[in-house]
Structures are given as C-alpha cells and as structure tokens.
C-alpha cells in the first residue's frame, strides 16, 4: 500500500519535473531562436523557401475548407435567423463569426496539421540522420540555418492563410446565402459593413492569427529539434506537435477572445 503510494508520488513528481523542464527548455529555445534569427532575414531566400512549403502548399486545403465552412455557416445561420424574420442579418453572422473566430482558429488548426507536422518531421529526421550535428561540425548553427527560417516562414504564412480563409468563407456564405437561398444582396453586404468594424473585428482577427502562427510554428520547430533521434521518436514528436498546437490554439483563442471582445461594446 505504502509502496504503491510512494511509486505513484514519484511518477507524479517526475511528470511535473519533466513538464516544467521542457517548458523552460522551450522558452530558452524560443529566446535563442529569436536572437539567432538574423540569418533568416539576411538570407531571406531561405525563409522564402519555407513560406513556399508552409504557406503556398497549404493554399488548396485552406481555400477549400474556407469555402465550405462559409457555405455551411450560411445554410445553418439562415435556418435559425429566418425563424426570427431577420434573414438579412446572415451577412453579419457569417462575416463576424469568420473574421473574429473561425478564420484564425480553423486556419490555425489546419496549418498545424498540414504544415506544423511537416516541419517537425523534417527537422526531426534531419536530427535523426545527424544532419544537424554535421552542420555544427562545420560551424554552422543549425538553429540559425534550419530552424529560424522555418519559424519565420510559418509566422509570415499564418496571417495570410487566415485572411484568405475568412475571405473565402465570406464568399462561400455569399454563394449560398445570396445566390442559392436568395437573401437580398444589398442587405447582405450593407448589414455586414455596418456591423463589422475594421479595428475591433478585422485587426483583432489578424492579431489572433499572428499569435497562433507564432505558437504553432514554435511548437513544431521545438518538437522537431527536441525529438529523440529515432524513427519512433520522430513519429511521436509529429503527433505531439499536432496535439499540443491544436490545444494551444484553442486555449490561446479563449484568452485572446476574453481580452479583445469583452470590454467596451
């Protein structure tokens, strides 16, 4: 009995210690990464390549998902709004929910699973095949040469993808709401324009997407850099990237929403 309790306590303590240690290591890694980001901007072509892999190649999934999310929002929103005889407010519903929440969050989740996992797997495999050690041998800092361009590429791509997701979603809402269902086109756009504020809604959405971009790519590069250099280790790290960054996005979204949209109006 006592032995079992002791063992349980040891496991708990070890789990907490490892968690805190990894958190501290992650934070130090983040600071080191920021300090050694010079190369990513001096040789911007490296970052450009990563924007291509993380951003451009994610375009299809982001655009198609945005379109369908907007179309579903319009269908579902219309069902509810027409009960209250205010189906003209469909534009407001679609635009506000996309710009404030769904754009940054869903684009972030897709980005984490599409680009984040790829970044982790790539860096993890480079570590497992000792490419990172080889760079160190040649006095090339792998964080500056490999990690920082991937980080900044992701951070730059994420707001662009979120904006595209929102725009595409609103277009999807327009297709279903106005073209298919037949909500009045003038009311759809004018009510949307009256309700959506550039600073409060759109800018806050962009800020959210930047924060998610930093969180997702940091987790992705850290998990890759920290992965055990085995096939199993890399696969575990890839899974952890998707799980951790999805949870981070949802938790950060709650905090940011509480900060942005509760005060004032």
């Amino acid at each position, binding site marked *: 009995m006592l032995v079992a309790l002791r063992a349980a306590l040891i496991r708990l303590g070890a789990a907490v210690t490892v968690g805190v240690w990894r958190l501290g290591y992650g934070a130090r890694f983040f600071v080191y990464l920021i300090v050694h980001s010079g190369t990513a901007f001096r040789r911007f072509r490296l970052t*450009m390549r990563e924007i*291509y892999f993380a951003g451009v190649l994610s375009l299809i999934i982001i655009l198609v998902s945005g379109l369908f999310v907007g179309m579903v929002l319009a269908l579902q929103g219309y069902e509810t709004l027409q009960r209250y005889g*205010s189906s003209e407010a469909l534009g407001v519903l679609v635009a506000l929910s996309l710009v404030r929440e769904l754009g940054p969050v869903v684009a972030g989740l897709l980005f984490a699973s599409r680009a984040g996992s790829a970044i982790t797997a790539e860096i993890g495999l480079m570590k497992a095949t000792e490419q990172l050690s080889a760079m160190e041998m040649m006095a090339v800092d792998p964080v500056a040469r490999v990690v920082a361009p991937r980080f900044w590429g992701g951070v730059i791509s994420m707001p662009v*993808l979120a904006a595209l997701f929102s725009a595409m979603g609103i277009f999807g809402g327009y297709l279903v709401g106005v073209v298919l269902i037949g909500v009045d086109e003038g009311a759809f756009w004018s009510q949307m324009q*009256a309700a959506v504020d*550039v600073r409060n809604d*759109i800018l806050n959405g962009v800020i959210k997407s930047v924060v998610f971009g930093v969180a997702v790519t940091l987790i992705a590069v850290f998990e890759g850099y920290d992965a055990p250099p085995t096939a199993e280790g890399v696969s575990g790290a890839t899974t952890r990237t998707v799980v951790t960054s999805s949870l981070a996005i949802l938790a950060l979204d709650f905090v940011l929403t509480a900060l942005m949209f509760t005060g004032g*109006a």
Partner: protein
Amino acid sequence: MNRSAIDLWVGVFVAIGLGALLFLALKVGNLASFSTAQTYQVEARFSNIGGLKVRAPVKSAGVVVGRVAQIRFDNESYEAVAVLTVDSSYKFPRDTSAKILTSGLLGEQYIGLEAGADARMLAGGERMRITQSAVVLENLISQFFFNKAAEGGDAKSAK
C-alpha cells in the same frame, strides 16, 4: 523547384493574402467610411437610454452621421449622458433634437437627430437641449393599462 518559381509562388501567395485583407477591410468592414474623417463631439442627456450601446450609430434622416462615443451616468441630475461623435462635414443647428430610436422591431437602438431651425450651428463640446428618451416597453404597457382603467371609470361614472 528552381528559385524563380519559388519566388513567383511566394509573391502570388503574399499578393492574394494582401488582396484578401483588403477585401475584408473594404468590402466587409467598410473602412472607407468614417475612420479617418474629422469629427466633433456633442453631448446629449437622456432620462433613460434603454439599450443604447457605445458605438451605436447616430443617424439623421436615416443616414449615419456619427457614432455614440461614450455613455456615462451623471450623479448630479440622475441622467444618462451620451457623448456623440459626429462627422465634421455634417453641421446641425443648435436646437437639433436627439431621440433614441429602435431599428426594426428587435433591432439595435440608435440616436436619431432631427435638425431644428436655429441659425447658429452646434460646435464641439456643446450640449443638445431637446432630447427624447428610449421607449421602455414596460412603461408603455402600464400607460396603456392606466388609460384603459381610466376609461372604464369614466364609463361607470357616466351611467
């Protein structure tokens, strides 16, 4: 994939991203109207503002001419003070009246301005003297019942 192809695609990517932001700002958010325009502030006091919120529109003849910038309670006169930000390109006479109105049956509340006839115009920081409070449904209903009761009493006494 050679270099120039990557550059091209990244260029296209960033360009359509900026295009999407521009679309959100102009078509969805309507940046063009108001945000940079010159404004002046006037004050209006109401005995009850109902459900009026900060950032609610200020309309005159149905056209949005400004926004509600601030709402506070005056502890001296026990009135609500609404500070209105009005676009400088619109001038109103000093005896303009402010009413709290509702758009539609369930819509949001806004302030309607009705221009007066005074030769002098409202300047920044001035107060609108003539105001009409929000219609509170409960007051309206109780008024209706009192009127009905009074009618019933009259009918009885007339017999």
